[in-house]
């Protein structure tokens, strides 16, 4: 747990005034979101600490909702004058005579702290962080003479948010975040390949002790690059695909998660908008989004609208159970809040977002799943993916294997998987009991806003999928 520090110095009387000013043109709801973030960054490459950086982000946004319209103004000058200007900018979205009185603020207290840490990273000395970076760097570099280039990045921040709204809700959160990542380039006979690994989350320095020592991050990156030196072209065409446990959660994030975000369904642009309570996939498939997982990169005590989040069941044995909600969509759709209103920073309007999304573990033995495939692809690591509201999605395999006669054989190079979500959901044939989460390094982009997320899944077999390789 890190302590909340008030960098805003705005009294309750002033906050009430600003919320009233924001509603001076009518409007149903007003809100102040104040944010202070302090970052540090270290980059090691070519055997030297090449960059260190410290940055501060301070700003405040005022939002007004009127019906289904949103007005937003923000400023990084926290003088009352500038904040008042932002409030008036936001106020202009409304046009009615209605007047609202602001109740006394009542603080929302989250039921428990999701960041159970011992040694806050943002308070550690730069020397101590540099030491972690060096350890990852050296273990990667020394793991094999074919490793020709190593790069290690360390980023951490502490984010303080303070939210009040015209309904009298007051909430604050102090969120730590850290990420240590290593990239490696291996070279053999003129061929170069790239490997990546990393770790982190809303954790303290102790995380890099036994849970995830920097040496492991360095070695994992080297191993991936070395493996790819031996990789063959991926095949092209339709075939069975087995998703490895962990990283393949990105497929669920792309293929299903985004289209269950409430805004796309409220606007009926998502293929799921009329499918609440309907069966869309295999009965083996259950999907959750859970912002409450302790220490996870995508977790939070309150969302960016001040709502305490809850684990949300999205797909229940193949049936669409609920959408990920923010305040605006929940109100317009008449659904309960789920605590998924997130924003990149104070300059952005909150929208429904995923946090930690995963496929629940099933019944099957992962070994048996592999044995059931005569010829196919084992997709192990991913660069990322993308989805359209129409349900078409892709995701890019950065490392995987051929499956031949139920066994993993040659490693394969970069390939793309493509499909339409409902089609793929129905083709989920087996779900393993081995739920695993991917790296604590992921970021998801939507409408230009980036937020930290994680994904997870057990071993999953998809009976047929289009694989785009070169051979």
């Amino acid at each position, binding site marked *: 747990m890190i302590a909340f520090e008030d960098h805003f110095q705005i009294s309750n009387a002033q906050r009430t005034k600003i919320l009233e000013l924001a509603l001076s043109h009518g409007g149903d709801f007003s809100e102040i979101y104040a944010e202070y973030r302090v970052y540090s960054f270290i980059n090691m490459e070519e055997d030297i*600490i*090449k*960059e*260190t*950086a*410290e*940055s*501060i*982000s*301070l*700003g405040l946004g005022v939002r007004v909702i009127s019906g*289904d*319209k*949103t007005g*937003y*103004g*923000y*400023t*990084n000058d926290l003088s009352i004058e500038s904040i008042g200007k932002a409030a008036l900018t936001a106020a*202009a*979205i409304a046009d009615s005579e209605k007047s609202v009185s602001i109740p006394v603020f009542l603080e929302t207290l989250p039921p428990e702290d999701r960041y159970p840490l011992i040694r806050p990273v943002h308070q550690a000395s*730069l020397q101590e962080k*540099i030491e972690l970076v060096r350890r990852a760097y050296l273990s990667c570099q020394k793991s094999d003479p074919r490793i020709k*280039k190593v*790069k290690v990045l360390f980023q951490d921040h502490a984010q303080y948010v303070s939210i009040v709204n015209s309904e009298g809700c007051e909430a604050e959160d102090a969120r730590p975040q850290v990420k240590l990542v290593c990239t490696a380039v291996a070279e053999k006979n003129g061929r*170069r*390949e*790239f490997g990546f690994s990393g770790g982190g989350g809303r954790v303290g320095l102790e995380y890099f002790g036994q849970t995830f020592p920097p040496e492991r991050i360095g070695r994992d990156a080297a191993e991936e690059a070395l493996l790819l030196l031996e990789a063959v072209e*991926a095949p*092209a*065409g*339709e075939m069975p695909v087995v998703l490895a446990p962990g990283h393949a959660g990105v497929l669920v994030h792309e293929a299903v998660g985004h289209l269950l975000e409430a805004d796309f369904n409220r*606007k009926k*642009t998502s*293929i799921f908008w009329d499918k609440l309570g309907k069966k869309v996939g295999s009965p083996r498939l259950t999907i959750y989004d859970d912002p409450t997982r302790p220490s996870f990169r995508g977790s939070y005590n309150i969302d960016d609208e001040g709502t305490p989040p809850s684990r949300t069941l999205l797909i229940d044995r193949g049936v669409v159970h609920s959408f990920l909600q923010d305040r605006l969509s929940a109100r317009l759709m008449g659904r309960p809040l789920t605590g998924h209103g997130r924003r990149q920073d104070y*300059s952005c*309007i909150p929208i429904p977002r995923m946090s930690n999304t995963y496929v629940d573990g099933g019944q099957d033995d992962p070994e048996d799943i592999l044995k059931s495939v005569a010829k196919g692809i084992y997709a192990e690591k991913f660069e990322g993916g*993308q989805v*359209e*509201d*129409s*349900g*078409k*999605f*892709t*995701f*890019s395999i*950065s490392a995987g294997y051929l499956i031949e006669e139920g066994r993993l054989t040659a490693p394969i190079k*970069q*390939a*793309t*998987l*493509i499909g*339409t979500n*409902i089609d793929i959901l129905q083709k989920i044939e087996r779900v393993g009991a081995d739920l695993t989460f991917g790296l604590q390094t992921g970021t998801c982009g939507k409408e230009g806003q980036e937020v930290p997320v994680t994904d997870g899944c057990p071993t999953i077999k998809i009976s047929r999928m*289009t*694989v*785009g*390789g*070169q051979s």
Partner: protein
Amino acid sequence: MIEKPKSPSLLELAERVVRLGKEYGADEVEATVSDGREFSVDVRQGQVENLVEAGSRGLGFKVIKDMKTAYAASSDLNPETVRRLVRNAVSRAALGSRDECAGLPPLSSEKVDIPSLCLYDPGVRELEAARKIKLAMETERIALEDKRITNSHGASFITNEVTTVLAGSNGFLGSYDQTFCSLSVGLQAGETDEKVEDYWVSVDRFFKNLESPETVARKAVERTVRQIHPRKIRTQTVPVIFEPAMTDWLVGFLFACISAVAVYQKTTFLAGRLGERIGNEKITVIDDGLMPGKLGSRPFDSEGVPCRKTTVFERGVLRRFLSNTYAGRKLRLPTTGNSEGTGVSPNNFYLQPGPVSPQEIIASTERGLVLTRTIGHGLNPVTGDLSRGALGLWVEGGEIAYPVSEVTIAGNLEQILSQVEMVGNDLEFRSPVCGPTIKIGALTVAGE
């Protein structure tokens, strides 16, 4: 290089940071201040959905002491915060490593005439909110008149006005103002389980050059409805025609591979290959920061180095990497005025157009795929391999036959550049990284 010091406080802040850095013992200091004013309106189904208006300032700087560099940035411009950040940066630099290539560039005697670059349109600032909202409304309304369109992602009108100030302990002091505006609409066609979607956006520095609501709506509708009832195709190797937006994407990947930063870091397959033939003779690629009114133009880069025109590929031969001062020193190559932050960025980076029209390119193709969109990631600069999900139009007998979806394309950038058979005449500079329609002799298209 100061155009109009109309925000003296920004200049003062940048100069103050340089002075403070020197006072705390830095050998060199470089400070950038930016001041932006943003307006955006999203409308959907005839209603305003979001309206955002704001101004924000930011400071970024680096200090160098004993050839060791430290960086800092802040949106909190309180003088005490700034002073503390400068002091911290100088003491943090001592913990870094000595780097012989660190340091500011020497002050250049070249000067760029900023007004001739046409970066700023006073008309953008003067536009009233009601007018901007109306333009977005009009665009969506016209698009929705087409009965084949079944839903809208909404239309947006955005304006940005940005002032950039740069001061360096090498004596550089520069400032310029620029404007951007854009009008866009995103649409869906088809029924729930067979939806297709696309969008169109017009972006320009000058309001008068922006496409009209009619044009933006028409293009978005055309691009969306042409995908209705797509078919799957068999896996095959065929000629692939890239529409300009797709060439933009390919040229963007090429930029990642000719960045001098990627070269010295050995993260590109083009490292060490200056002077070699990479593409065929149809490939001439240029970076030019001085094109009047174009989106990627600027008088100087983030280190104060004057921008210029650089030929990167000349008839298929790799001539230059695009560089900042640091990567230039590493590689013993000149900087090209492409510095951005700690890396490099393109100015106007484009594939030179050829003589034929896009219609002629399609007519020349017996069987093949017109690539209209790609989705996903799948670019690897280390190997040049690319693999992406794709949508397109199937060509049969020199004519568009039907839309195609759920395919992927895969290939290698070097092979693609050596197999460019035709280059179109339709280069429009719609983005800073761009190219015309091109036809690739053969690519693997994976389907059923």
